[in-house]
């Protein structure tokens, strides 16, 4: 190693360290902009519309055809009741065509495949956006879709809130997309207009921003 190499090595190392530390410092200073963490129970990410979460059952429509329970690959849907009967079973729920006394899904078994949605003739069972479901006991993981008694009132409130939050996020995303579109349109309009006034693009893009 020559003397020149020795010193050029030192300078090279110092330079590369300075570059690296500049990058981390930039991230540190602009942490508010860069943070990608979502503080889960308090904030939520967008849940896609076709998300397969906890089931919902529209009891009035159910005809108790057992198709969902038949197609279920893991056999986690338990249905009890009578079809076409007029009498109301004790503790049961009277639907349009059937009287249900039990419609339970065991979430220790369910794989959220969504197959139960497909064969349902009146389309009354579907998988919703909620995915956070927990229990202190294994037996409590069986959710009764008729009475919702596994969910406490607090859970229900939370579900309501989560749905609202999801709607808000969807609306926000849509709004942002619309604004983008409006901006693009405005820019296009400004481009078509006489080229002598390129500054016209900025005011044209303003109104959608102001409305937000």
């Amino acid at each position: 190693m020559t003397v020149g190499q020795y010193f050029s090595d030192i300078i090279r190392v110092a330079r590369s360290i300075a570059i690296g530390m500049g990058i981390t410092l930039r991230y540190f200073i602009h942490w508010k902009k860069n943070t990608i963490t979502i503080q889960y129970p308090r904030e939520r990410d967008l849940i896609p519309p076709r998300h397969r979460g906890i089931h919902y059952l529209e009891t009035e429509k159910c005809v108790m055809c057992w198709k969902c329970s038949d197609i279920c690959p893991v056999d986690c849907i338990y249905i009890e009741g009578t079809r076409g009967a007029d009498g109301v079973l004790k503790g049961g729920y009277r639907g349009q065509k059937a009287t249900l006394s039990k419609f339970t899904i065991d979430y220790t078994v369910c794989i959220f495949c969504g197959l139960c949605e497909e064969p349902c003739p009146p389309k009354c069972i579907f998988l919703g956006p909620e995915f956070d479901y927990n229990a202190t006991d294994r037996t409590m993981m069986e959710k009764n879709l008729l009475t919702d008694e596994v969910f406490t009132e607090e859970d229900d409130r939370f579900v309501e809130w989560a749905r609202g939050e999801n709607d808000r996020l969807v609306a926000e995303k849509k709004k942002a997309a619309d604004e983008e579109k409006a901006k693009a349109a405005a820019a296009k309009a400004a481009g078509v207009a006489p080229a002598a006034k390129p500054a016209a693009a900025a005011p044209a893009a303003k109104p959608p921003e102001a409305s937000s």
Partner: protein
Amino acid sequence: MTLLAQAVPPGAVDIARARGTHDAQGGLYLESWIYQGLDALGLEFPFEEWVLIAVTLLVVCGLVFGFINLFALFAVWLERKVSAHMQCRLGPMEVGPHGLLQTLADGIKLTVKEDIIPRVADKPLFILAPIIVFTGILIRFVPLPFGQGLVASDLDLGLFFVAAVGSVEVIGVIMAGWASNNKWSLFGTIRTATQMVSYEIPIGIAFVAVIVCAGSFSLMEIVNVQQGWFWHWLVFRNPFLLILSLIYLIASLAECKRAPFDLPEAESELVSGFHTEYAGMRFALFFLAEYAAMYLVSAVAVVLFFGGWWTGIPAIDDIGLAADDSALTVMVGFLVKAGVFVTKAVFLVFIQMWVRWTLPRVRLDQMMHICWKVLLPISLVCLVGSTLWELMTGGGAFFGIPALFGFR
């Protein structure tokens, strides 16, 4: 008891009575406070002299220990926040505002954890090791000022003391690694010994160069030399000291086992090195010692190179220094200087964290290369250069440039 009473020099009480509650530099004498308070009430101190000395020592030790704890609470939080923000994360957010009390919660958890000692470990050494490591750090705080006149004991050989007692920590770390009876701990131990012994040499040379320029070993004296405009700080005294300050900062990273020199506890290679087998309070002691060491090397760097408690602007520095200032002004100046000193040290600690979360860990041979082939020769050249510069220019500040234009 008798022996201790004899060890206290006769007439300590008279000295304490005579010298007043603080010295010209604003330094406070705790025992004098007690005596003057008693005199004001017309009372006599009811015990022998050594009781007072012992109480004073205990109080000072408690203050330093409390400061270390508080600093560690803050620094661990800061480290987690710095690392998180540099990696696009948020870090602790739940306990307290922005997770400020997270460390307190973690500390409580550590204290109530089960104290595990491996069956094959060397029990006495295993128990002794964290105590020695922590004590080795705590002792180094003795000559270290926290502000003007705010020091446990202003030793005449303060800098020498800091450098010498620093080696005690190595013994504790070697003890911990050996007593754990674990191959990863032993690897970590051997690396620690290699690293800390090697990197003490550039640090020592930086110390010598500072001593040559400041003309004193005492940390208080070294700070007093740097009074005035910021170009009187030793880092701007000559170009060689500027380089030496960088060398000190690099070597001090290795000295307190921080990345990129964290080979002794390299998580990805050695689990966590010499403290792999430690849990609960003993682990907490190691952790506390690491953060105390971070503050210590940063504070020493502030004392040696970055002007100690001086802000670099005489108008602010002179608050409370004039003879006819009121007690309130003196107190304000005292607090401002203590605040400036700790702020500077914490900023250097932040730089240590910044380096840690930027650079990858160096290999063992690269580490040795950096120390013996780069830092050591350059620091030796700088020592000679700085001494010659001092001899030739008679100690002109800021490379002698302000003096050319008639600035003091």
